[in-house]
């Protein structure tokens, strides 16, 4: 019996030939990531009386959730974090104005490579599976332990295989692929498991959309999402990645707990309706939902191709009356590229507001909270009760195409009806 790519990475990291699902292993970690809320992990480290991290080049920090500081509490937290970065001599530190949203900046900076084991105190750490790394989210204490020891106990996940045959239609994206998947298997459909994505539609998918697919694996309860490395992966890493690359692939006789196979060409632009990411429907079937706010950005969909998609829809058009449009380029580099390509001009002329590279209102922190009864279409990843503000507000999740089209129409619409 062969092994899956996830099993091979974990076997390598735990120094054995083969691991089996269910087995508890101690894996060496190649990187530990965090952001401003992860300041808590440094406080735990201090409480443990640990005075240095296992390898200061293998701890990556940025600030993205509560920046620029919206409150005195956030300001105090950022100040404390700056102190910890100095105290523990963290090498890969992206301060305000030098980085961006964690799951966009670390790959962009070449810090994520195939075969790595990466953990971090953010649930969307699973994003890095798009570059064939094993990556998974943890809480602050686990992250403190990983920063101290350079290793972590893990239960080897069983793998689920998701095969997308055929090619996606225009304006149907990785976001629609993952919303479809979560809709089919549910928000605990991959609980504790590895989600491996493959098939022609995945192999031909641009890297930015692969990040989106793996980013939302956690919304199905998964431990990690992963896509085998190929020419598209290597093209992204070329001239960017710093350090060794270990390219593993699943064996033909690897064991999967289940396989799901869908025709990618039949997929449509999707939305996840309130209040779960699994509550999906084709955007064209969701009628008469008036929109108050549109959010384009986040660790899920704030990369340059996401902004290009939104701009393609909004070019020469205006957001509908009464619709607030908020655009969050995910990193400073994405912001700069969007500026050079004229995308920001398109957004501003359409009546959108463009923000610094932060998480924005995704988690209901600041920069665009919703009032009682308001509705948002958002390219983010969660639509739980109160996620973006008032408990009586609603969030519909979609691709950048669908979000931009809904901004122009003023209600939820299939983007193919706008262009």
């Amino acid at each position, binding site marked *: 019996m062969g092994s899956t790519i996830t099993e091979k990475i974990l076997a390598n990291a735990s120094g054995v030939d083969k691991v089996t699902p269910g087995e508890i292993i101690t894996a060496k970690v190649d990187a530990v990531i965090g952001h401003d809320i992860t300041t808590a992990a440094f406080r735990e480290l201090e409480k443990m009386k640990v005075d240095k991290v296992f390898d200061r080049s293998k701890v990556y920090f940025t600030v993205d959730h509560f920046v620029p500081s919206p409150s005195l509490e956030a300001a105090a937290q950022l100040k404390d974090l700056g102190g910890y970065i100095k105290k523990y001599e963290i090498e890969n530190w992206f301060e305000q104005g030098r980085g961006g949203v964690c799951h966009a900046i670390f790959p962009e900076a070449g810090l994520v490579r195939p075969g790595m084991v990466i953990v971090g105190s953010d649930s969307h750490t699973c994003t890095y599976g798009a570059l064939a790394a094993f990556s998974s989210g943890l809480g602050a204490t686990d992250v403190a332990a990983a920063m101290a020891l350079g290793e972590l106990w893990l239960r080897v996940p069983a793998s689920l295989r998701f095969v997308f045959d055929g090619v996606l239609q225009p304006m149907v994206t990785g976001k629609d692929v993952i919303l479809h998947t979560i809709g089919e298997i549910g928000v605990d459909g991959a609980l504790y498991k590895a989600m491996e994505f493959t098939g022609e539609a995945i192999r031909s998918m641009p890297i930015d959309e692969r990040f989106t697919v793996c980013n939302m694996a956690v919304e199905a309860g998964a431990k990690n999402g992963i896509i085998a490395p190929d020419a598209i992966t290597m093209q992204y890493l070329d001239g960017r990645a710093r350090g060794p690359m270990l390219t593993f692939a699943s064996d033909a006789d690897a064991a999967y707990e289940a396989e799901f196979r869908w025709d990618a060409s039949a997929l449509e632009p999707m939305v996840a309706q309130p209040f779960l990411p699994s509550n999906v429907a084709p955007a064209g079937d969701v009628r008469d939902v008036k929109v108050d706010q549109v959010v384009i950005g986040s660790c899920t969909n704030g990369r340059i191709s996401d902004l290009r998609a939104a701009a393609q829809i909004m070019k020469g058009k205006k957001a509908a009356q009464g619709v607030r449009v908020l655009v969050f380029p995910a990193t400073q580099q994405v912001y700069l590229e969007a500026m050079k390509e004229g995308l920001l001009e398109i957004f501003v002329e359409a009546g959108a507001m463009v923000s610094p590279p932060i998480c924005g209102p995704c*988690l209901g922190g600041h920069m665009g909270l919703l009032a009682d009864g308001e509705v948002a279409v958002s390219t983010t990843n969660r639509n739980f009760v109160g996620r973006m503000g008032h408990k009586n507000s609603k969030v519909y999740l979609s691709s950048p195409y669908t979000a931009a089209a809904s901004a122009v129409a003023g209600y939820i619409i299939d983007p193919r009806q706008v262009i």
Partner: protein
Amino acid sequence: MAGKAWKFGDDVDTDAIIPGRYLANWNKTPEKLKEHCFADMNPTFASQVQAGDFVVGGRNFGCGSSREAAPIAIKMTGVKVVIAQSFARIFFRNSINVGLLVLESPAAAADIAPGDVLEVDTAAGTIKNVTRRQTYNFKPIPSFLQQILDLGGLAPYVKRRLGIA
């Protein structure tokens, strides 16, 4: 351990347990999380919950964000045990790490009604429903995790590994 059950449904997410707007610098004053626990989902919970009460959920309890503030918020209310049909994985790990007992018991999760009086016997591996005169088993904690619990959590484990007194 004995107390009253507070019942919640399936897919209770960590935003429901502690909304994101309360997270800025939460770790500096974790006791403050108590007043916001389940703020949107059950606004009376924080003011009425008693030390020793139980939180009972359905499937996939604690899904969503990796925020450790979620199990800590529950712990700060005086609740020591959460019972559910199943737990989301990050919430499960975080709970063990911060010393909140998480027990997986589909039978208990299905049967317990709001306000039922419960008793948990960790040594026997049972949850007793005093109100309904029922006893349920819970899934044993994996031995590796039990070792961490026996040491008093993940922090003492790390200190021991690094030889820190």
